[in-house]
């Protein structure tokens, strides 16, 4: 039959629009904002319109019924649980970002600012549901392009200019590298559809390993490495974080990471479909490559953060380090194909159990926790900065424990969460990741005890990280102000920071809702158990 008349195919292609209604709403709002922003530029007006747009997208995301396309192999969008999780994280981030960026949005550029923000959020949400290399690439660019504009909007100083220029050039280059990798994957499998690609490669792998596929995936990891600030690709981060406007930097610290990690997980076949069969051999270099990347990222990020006096640069390196922690989740997920449960039972009954943590679920918990504390930390910095006096160096925060108790208190909560102290969301995330690294099998040929070593390295690094976070807390509470700082009196930012602090504490006390959501988004696969006879 002519594929053009295949009703399944037609349904699949027609059904795509239903799957992206909230994103359409976001971009539609953005268009309205861009268009009428030329006529009337008012901060509160476009803030309200954008906020309503986000609310509308949330309502649509909650109400529009979707069903999985009939032909997964030709659908470019999949509405699976992972996609929904990413969408909600993106939408909530959008609402938070609208609030915390309040003080830095100027009257003349308000419409552009909010419009770009909405487009970037729509892009992040689309990455979560892309099932096609082209869609994936477009969605990633949908995050990057508005970011260039956002970084350029308030350019006044050389520092701003450097940040914008650097980000633009490196981002374009990373996209090119990624596209190059995609071309390999397309050339090998003859399709741009991710379901087809993973299927074909998985089948091919069961016989022999294709070095070309490995080249493609390595190039893709290189491209994504830029988004998730993995170590050899992290160089832009400190300069951009230092020079860029606070709200944009907060967005930059979270949304590309969210998108990058979910794209990585999708292309590596770690979410959706059968995670016990992945398009590369879990015994070979790829887990090892990711392992090395994770170790380098955690260690270098933390060590370099020790040396910073500028709080934004410090947060940049800390975000590099946190990217490394999240990579642990990916590394652990790669081990799932090798995982076996060994059971000793006298009755010899077969029992199927899953590992308690699958890696990707830990990653999702961590990225939400990371989003909360990063947004929060930048919100406090934004709140305390005024156009006349920016909060740049850590010493600028001296004594705010006395002068600005609420800002200092929320900042302390975010910093404790970044350290990973108990009763904060950061601890729940770290606990899940460490558990994951320990659940990974320790008896495979290549990796052996490396997963456990990863947990130890991460723990040691968490202690190193505590040093520079604690330094900020010490400055805030144990010193007196040299020059008392004025706050910007931006109520939305402060409210945003307080809500974020509340959420950080809530998920620290009771992480169950978050863990449930993450486990739903990335179910831990069931693993057959080898039964050995009981000694008795």
């Amino acid at each position, binding site marked *: 039959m002519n594929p053009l008349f295949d009703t399944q195919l037609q349904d699949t292609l027609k059904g795509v629009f239903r799957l992206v209604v909230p994103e359409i709403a976001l971009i539609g709002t953005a268009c309205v904002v861009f268009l009428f922003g030329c006529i009337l530029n008012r901060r509160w007006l476009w803030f309200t319109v954008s906020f309503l747009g986000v609310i509308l997208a949330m309502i649509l995301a909650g109400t529009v019924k979707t069903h999985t396309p009939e032909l997964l192999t030709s659908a470019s969008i999949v509405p699976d649980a992972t996609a929904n999780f990413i969408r909600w994280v993106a939408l909530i981030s959008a609402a938070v970002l609208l609030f915390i960026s309040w003080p830095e949005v100027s009257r003349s550029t308000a419409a552009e600012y909010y419009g770009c923000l909405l487009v970037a959020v729509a892009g992040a949400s689309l990455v979560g549901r892309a099932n096609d290399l082209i869609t994936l690439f477009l969605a990633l660019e949908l995050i990057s392009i508005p970011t260039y504009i956002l970084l350029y909007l308030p350019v006044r100083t050389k520092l701003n200019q450097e940040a914008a220029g650097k980000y633009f050039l490196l981002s374009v280059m990373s996209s090119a590298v990624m596209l190059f990798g995609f071309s390999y994957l397309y050339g090998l499998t003859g399709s741009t559809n991710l379901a087809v690609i993973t299927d074909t490669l998985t089948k091919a792998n069961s016989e022999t390993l294709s070095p070309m596929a490995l080249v493609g995936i390595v190039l893709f990891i290189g491209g994504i490495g830029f988004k998730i600030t993995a170590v050899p690709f992290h160089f832009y981060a400190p300069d951009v974080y230092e020079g860029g406007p606070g709200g944009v930097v907060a967005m930059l610290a979270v949304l590309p990471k969210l998108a990058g990690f979910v794209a990585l997980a999708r292309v590596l076949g770690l979410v959706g479909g059968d995670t016990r069969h992945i398009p590369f051999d879990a015994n070979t270099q790829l887990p090892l490559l990711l392992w090395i990347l994770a170790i380098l990222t955690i260690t270098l990020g933390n060590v370099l953060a020790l040396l910073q006096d500028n709080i934004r640069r410090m947060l940049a390196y800390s975000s590099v380090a946190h990217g490394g922690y999240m990579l642990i989740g990916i590394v652990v997920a790669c081990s799932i194909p090798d995982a076996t449960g060994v059971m000793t039972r006298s009755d010899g009954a077969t029992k199927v159990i899953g590992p308690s943590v699958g890696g990707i679920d830990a990653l999702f918990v961590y990225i939400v926790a990371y989003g909360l504390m990063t947004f929060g930390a930048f919100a406090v910095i934004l709140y305390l900065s005024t156009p006349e006096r920016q909060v740049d160096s850590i010493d600028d925060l001296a004594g705010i424990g006395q002068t600005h108790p609420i800002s200092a208190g929320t900042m302390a909560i975010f910093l404790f969460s970044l350290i990973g102290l*108990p009763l904060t969301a950061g601890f729940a995330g770290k606990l899940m990741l460490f558990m994951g690294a320990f659940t990974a099998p320790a008896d495979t040929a290549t990796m052996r005890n490396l997963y456990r070593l990863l947990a130890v390295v991460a723990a040691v690094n968490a202690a190193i990280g505590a040093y520079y976070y604690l330094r900020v807390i010490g400055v805030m509470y144990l010193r007196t102000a040299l020059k008392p700082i004025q706050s910007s009196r931006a109520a939305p930012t402060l409210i945003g920071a307080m809500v974020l602090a509340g959420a950080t504490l809530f998920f620290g006390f009771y992480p169950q809702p978050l863990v449930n959501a993450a486990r739903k988004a990335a179910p831990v696969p069931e693993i057959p158990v080898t039964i050995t006879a009981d000694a008795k």
Partner: protein
Amino acid sequence: MEKISEIVASPVTNRTLLLLLVLVPFLSAFFVSLFGRSSRRIALTLAFVHLGLTFFVVVLGTMHLNVRAEGTSSRTTDIVRFHPTFIPGDTAGKSGEDGRTGWTLMRLTDAPTSANRSGPYVQFFIGMDGLNLWLVALSSIMLIPAILVSWESVKTRPGAFYAWMFFLQGAAIGAFLSFDVILFYVFFELTLIPAFFLIGRWGEGSARRDAARKFFLYTLAGSLLTLIGVLGVVVTNPDPTTGQITFSLPDLMANVQHWLKVAHDEALAGKPEKLASLHTTQMWLFIAMMAGFMVKVPIWPFHTWQPAAYGEAPIGVTILLAALLAKLGTFGILRFVLTLLPDAAIMYGLPVVGSFAAFGIVYAALCAYAQRDMKLMIAYSSVSHLGFLVLAIFAFNAEGLSGSVLHMVNHGLSTGAVFALLAFLLDRYRTTQMSQYGGMMGRFPNFAVLAFILCLASIGLPGLNNFVSEMLMLAGLFHADVPHGHHYTLAFIAAFSIFLSSWYIMTMLQKVFFSPLKEPLPADPETTVPASDVSRREVFAFGSLAGLCLLLGLYPQPILDSLKTDVKALTQIGNGARARVKGEPVPVESATPPVSTANPTPPPKIVPKKGGGGKKDRKDAKGGGGEEEE
């Protein structure tokens, strides 16, 4: 009347009381922080409220434990577990005790909870047993002197100061009561935040910020490794029937024993590989887990944060640090290392950690002697005493274990009290330099009497509390049965430490109290009124502690009785581990009632009656220790 007793004894009351014991300090912290100058009175009242609650729990708890000790003495199983009671959220509901809680904080499984109750759940699992009951009581008691000695000295933001003190107390109590390994870790680390602010903001010296930071980072680095160790134990010991991991300590320790037993049986049948690999795993996990506890105790060479922190902290906080937080380390070893890594505790406990501890005992004692500042001297003496305590824990037998639990309480009381004595001097003269004082005996006769009692208690004079526990610990050490046994050497060093401690304490007493009168400048330079002797507030602060020291010295039996069951369980684990390490079959007989019930009790029955002479006829260990003191 019947009804009242029913309500009082009902499980629901017990559970509520225990929950309140953890919650009240946190609520008090919040409440106190709302007040300014008047907060100290409110803080004191709230501390007494908490003490009242603790009193009820102790009374109900001892009754319960004694009943249990009689009820279970005939029960023998190969796998022993802790039996916490008074658990809030007990799954048995209102009717009785189930020993598990239903209050889950985080579930790492999609399976429903009801089917099988042990699973990968992080739970709010707190409970009471013989090992933690008295430490909780100690935590409740010690806050009162800590508040009383801060009465005059804390001028800046007293509301926040007392709030953090309550926070610290709550976190310590939570850690003592936890029966979930992750929950323990949560409370264990939670103590860092209040301690950091208390030292850093209200500290006395110029280096207080560095001290606070050092304390925080050092402890955090250690305890993160402890977390890794704990997770390692959790992951490598799933439930033998369901294959699920568990975070609940009683279940986990049962799993650990099961897998060891399986491997041991194989080893006895001629296939030692599995046991050997388990032992290797245990060694790594032991290193990881001990890292945090060795820092917290602290054991040489990880003690460097401690003199700085104790020295810089305001004196009230030092009392809490020395009395409570140091005990978290020793308690962690007792509760978690011994039960989860028993074989490694036998193999590396005394030989490796014990050697560090023994070296630290002597080293810290010499450091203490060399100090000019009394505060630092007591800080070093604490390192020395706690090294002894850790040695006794790793002796892993009934005498050593019951002695060490008792000594945790005793050391908390006496060291806390000695720090409180310094507060008396600090309030009047603002210095603790030994060289500035002299002839205080004539100047403050009442103070001198109390100081003598407490210092002698700290040395371990017969009739005072530390004597009983130190003798038990020594007996445990001499009796220790470990491979590579140089336990006689260790026991000798431990006994020698008692002599060393009397040496430096007596030197201090002589310099401060007996030489010709020498007074430093008064704290308030304008005042013309000479400093007065012990005020009523101070009598309460350390006079009551002196009374408690005397009481526990003369009659420690209630504490030892309530420990019996749990010490027996630990001893049984120890015997099993010893057999595995030696490659012998587990001595089943030694775990049965006649021998083991006899083990923990006899020594103290004779010791405490009269302080002076009647102890030499007991074991050689006691005779040796006693002579050195007199």
